């Protein structure tokens, strides 16, 4: 296999493994690694040795990707990005598992409350907060509807209350995950520094 072909294969493979990054970041990395390979080849090192010293394209890409997801997500408000980062964090330890769990519960509760608020005008008799003898018996959107002696107490106030509570829960969840991701980054940096000093 000729050297140029081996290099092209390696760089294509690297590009593929760097998939989750932006196009600019990916091409910048590929350009730099390509320059490294050409520089090393000019010193007379053969292509197998150069690529061997770089490590496999998958391993190299993983080193670039590591931390990137968490770093970008900690500045994002997208639930999808935040939950992907929380899932990555969950693979690293108990703290991550806890953050992921808080994310799932928070987004499910917030989303559920907001959706329930929006369902009130569509299913007014099925959506609300029912009370019987001073005790809460049901909450949300219920099929079949709750009948007497329990009675619904919020009426159309249910809509703004649920939309507000849902939005606040979603915001709070986003804030908690972002803060946890930032804390985890600080821990990691501290660990790396301490590791460097040890």
């Amino acid at each position, binding site marked *: 296999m000729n050297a140029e072909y081996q290099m092209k294969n390696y760089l294509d493979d690297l590009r593929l493994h760097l998939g989750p990054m932006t196009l600019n970041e990916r091409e910048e990395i590929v350009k730099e690694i390509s320059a490294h390979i050409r520089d090393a080849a000019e010193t007379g090192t053969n292509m197998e040795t150069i690529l061997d010293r770089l490590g496999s394209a998958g391993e190299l890409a993983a080193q670039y990707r590591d931390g990137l997801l968490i770093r970008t997500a900690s500045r994002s408000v997208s639930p999808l990005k935040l939950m992907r980062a929380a899932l990555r964090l969950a693979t690293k330890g108990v703290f991550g598992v806890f953050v992921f769990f808080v994310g799932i519960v928070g987004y499910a509760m917030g989303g559920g409350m907001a959706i329930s608020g929006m369902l009130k005008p569509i299913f007014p008799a099925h959506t609300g907060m029912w009370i019987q003898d001073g005790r809460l018996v049901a909450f949300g959107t219920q099929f079949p509807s709750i009948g007497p002696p329990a009675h619904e107490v919020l009426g159309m106030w249910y809509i703004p209350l649920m939309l507000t509570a849902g939005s606040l829960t979603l915001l709070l969840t986003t804030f908690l995950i972002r803060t946890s991701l930032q804390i985890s980054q600080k821990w990691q940096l501290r660990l790396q*520094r301490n590791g460097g*000093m040890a």
Partner: protein
Amino acid sequence: MAKMRQQIVEADSDRWEAQLRKGALEMAALASLWNGRLYGLEIIRFLETHSRLVLAEGTIYPILNRLKTEGLLTSEWVEAEAGHPRKYYSLTEAGRLRLREMARAWVSFSSGLSRLLEPLLETEEISK
């Protein structure tokens, strides 16, 4: 049994040494740029020559990338006679400050540890 124990000790110390090198690499990469800008392969060669740090070459580029994201390095592409551009890295002011802090902490820590460890090595030589 003794052979197995020896293998475990060697594997553990290899892993420990690998972690030690990885942690120190960030500081070493910053230090290589103290006197001016260098591109990737030059940094690798500089570290090999000046610190006997032999690297799996792929490890340095993600580290440089991270240090740049942290604002400790800047980079620029320069057209070279070689016919392809090279990405040169330089220390930022924050990078210089951080490196000084790291160097100070490293030197004081390692000299303290050396005082602790040197007697162990002397004992070993005497027992030989």
